[in-house]
């Protein structure tokens, strides 16, 4: 050590030298998202070989699996914050279905402007999150049970309200209302279309028979996903509120005794998961032009899988938003990869379950490692 150190390094205090001894690898290993990063690299490498020449890694293919990852990633980000805060939300999937109905029915059936319908959906989502949070706080019941109740309540409400008001469980025709609505346009279409057109002109990406690029831009869902992940990561790592999330999930009592407003933190996290479900619903409704009461089925479990693959502990107090994003990316890669490689898609679920178990075992092992004196 001494012989290789430069004169400048010798001049630094001796204490700093001891920190240097904690190797880069050990540091990387102690990050919650390390497992997910390793998993992403593995899965990516696998499909780069297995799916080479199938079009999975052409611009169109990349946009495809990123879009799958983005949709899941949006709710996984919120689920990650909530899980780090020590709670679950099993009502995310049902909230997606309900929010879609709340957007489509007022807009299509009652002629509301789309922005007002979207705001209504967000307001209802906020209320649902607020009720979830308060029930968990006031009763002390596990959020698993409380939100399991809401899984059924919200799904039932979506179907019931939809059939009561329209006689149907599917509402189409939302597309006609999007043009000219600036708020709705936040959830629809693509960005950087000019850039992609320019790249096509340069011959960097393929064009179709009409001379238009096959990929016309980055779907707005991917922008939402990356944006939410960035904001959530910043909040977790750099803000007092982030510290409160870790503290609330790590030990709610200790946090409360130190002056952390644990109840407020948990309510806001439940509201955020409900909001994320509404964002998901907005993107889906704007994309497909329709709402369906069964949308979002099992999404709450997929979100939890992505979060756990991303290194979060089910018991709370540990995890990362970047990990959840990587978990969602693995999800997208595998789902589309299986499609492109021509493997029977039935195997997707097997892979998902195995992935989840491996991730949990790996996380447990890493947590023990992190607790050992360095």
């Amino acid at each position, binding site marked *: 050590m001494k012989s290789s150190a430069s004169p400048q390094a010798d001049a630094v205090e001796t204490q700093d030298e001891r920190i240097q001894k*904690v190797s880069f690898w050990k540091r990387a290993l102690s990050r919650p998202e390390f497992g997910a990063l390793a998993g992403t690299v593995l899965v990516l490498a696998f499909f780069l070989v297995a799916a080479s020449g199938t079009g999975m890694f052409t611009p169109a293919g990349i946009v495809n699996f990123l879009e799958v990852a983005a949709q899941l990633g949006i709710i996984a980000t919120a689920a990650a914050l909530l899980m780090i805060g020590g709670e679950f939300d099993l009502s995310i999937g049902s909230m997606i279905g309900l929010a879609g109905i709340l957007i489509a029915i007022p807009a299509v059936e009652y002629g509301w402007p789309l922005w007002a319908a979207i705001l209504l959906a967000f307001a209802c989502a906020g209320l649902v999150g607020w009720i979830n949070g308060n029930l968990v706080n006031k009763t002390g019941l596990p959020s698993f049970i409380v939100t399991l109740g809401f899984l059924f309540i919200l799904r039932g409400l979506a179907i019931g309200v939809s059939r009561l008001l329209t006689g149907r469980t599917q509402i189409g025709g939302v597309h006609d209302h999007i043009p000219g609505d600036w708020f709705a346009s936040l959830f629809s279409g693509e960005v950087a279309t000019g850039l992609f057109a320019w790249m096509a002109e340069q011959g960097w990406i393929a064009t179709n028979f009409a001379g238009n690029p096959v990929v016309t831009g980055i779907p707005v869902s991917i922008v939402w996903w990356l944006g939410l992940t960035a904001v959530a990561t910043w909040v977790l790592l750099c803000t007092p509120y982030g510290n409160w999330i870790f503290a609330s999930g790590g*030990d709610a*009592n*200790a*946090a409360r*005794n130190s*002056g952390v*407003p644990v109840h407020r933190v948990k309510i806001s996290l439940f509201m955020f998961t409900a909001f994320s479900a509404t964002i998901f619903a907005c993107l889906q409704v704007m994309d497909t032009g329709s709402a369906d009461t069964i949308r979002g089925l099992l999404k709450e479990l997929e979100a939890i899988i992505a979060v756990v693959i991303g290194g979060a502990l089910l018991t709370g107090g540990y995890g990362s938003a970047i990990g959840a994003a990587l978990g969602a990316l693995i999800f997208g890669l595998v789902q589309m990869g299986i499609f492109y490689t021509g493997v029977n898609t039935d195997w997707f679920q097997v892979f998902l379950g195995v992935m989840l178990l491996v991730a949990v075992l790996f996380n447990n092992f890493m947590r023990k490692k992190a*607790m050992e*004196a360095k």
Partner: protein
Amino acid sequence: MSERTPMIEMRSVSKHFGSVIALSDISMQVYSGEVMCLLGDNGAGKSTLIKTLSGVHQPTHGEMLLGGEPARFKSPAYALDAGIATVFQDLAMIPLMSITRNFFMGREPTVGWGPFKRIDWKLADRIAKQEMAKIGIDVRDPSQPVGTLSGGERQCVAIARAVYFGAKVLILDEPTSALGVKQASVVLRYIAKARADGLAVIFITHNVHHAYPVADAFTLLKRGGSLGTFRKENISREEVLNMMAGGAELESLDAELAEFQRSDSEKNADTEETATASKTRLAAGQ
């Protein structure tokens, strides 16, 4: 001494949980620069008392005075703001969070403005390291999880945190009970230092060898009531031990007492009532 204003005072404080009277008519004064040792068996009301002091519970009757002013705390956050810091036995630290995150939990130093307000990690890390160094614990890396520290070091982080944030009253709930001899002495030395810094310290312990050297006064609780406060100069180590072993119920506990005193004079045990003779024989027969 009694003319000084107590740093914290309880006047006839009672706390009821439904039909259960957890505390009844407790009066106690603690002065700055003093260590008050709170003694009592399990269920005596020690925990309720300190939770009332630290704002977790609100007293049903009676009042609390902080520096001579009436004080009422709606939550631990209010008590903290008023300068009452409590270090709970096992609820002080979150093992998976870093030393710095634990140290500043709930009171993070920030830079920037509005939505861009963020934790000043450089400052926070430096202060955490500094404060730990002050109490003789050399933290290599303040971003390492608290779980990597020993039990005594964890207690010290909690105490250092309370002192750093300007606590006037420091409440310690059995800080040494789970610690080895060496680790306990680290904590005790730090308690003595906090007292020297002018803090009013309320110290709860079951271990007289920990309590006696640092305490200035002892308050004995029993079944929710106070059996009185004793100054250290008026009470011997053995009397404190007796109080801890059961106080006024001493007569009915003399078998245990015989055990304690056996090494001093085994004759004492022989003159006890016949009801305890069998136990005494057992003890003598070892």
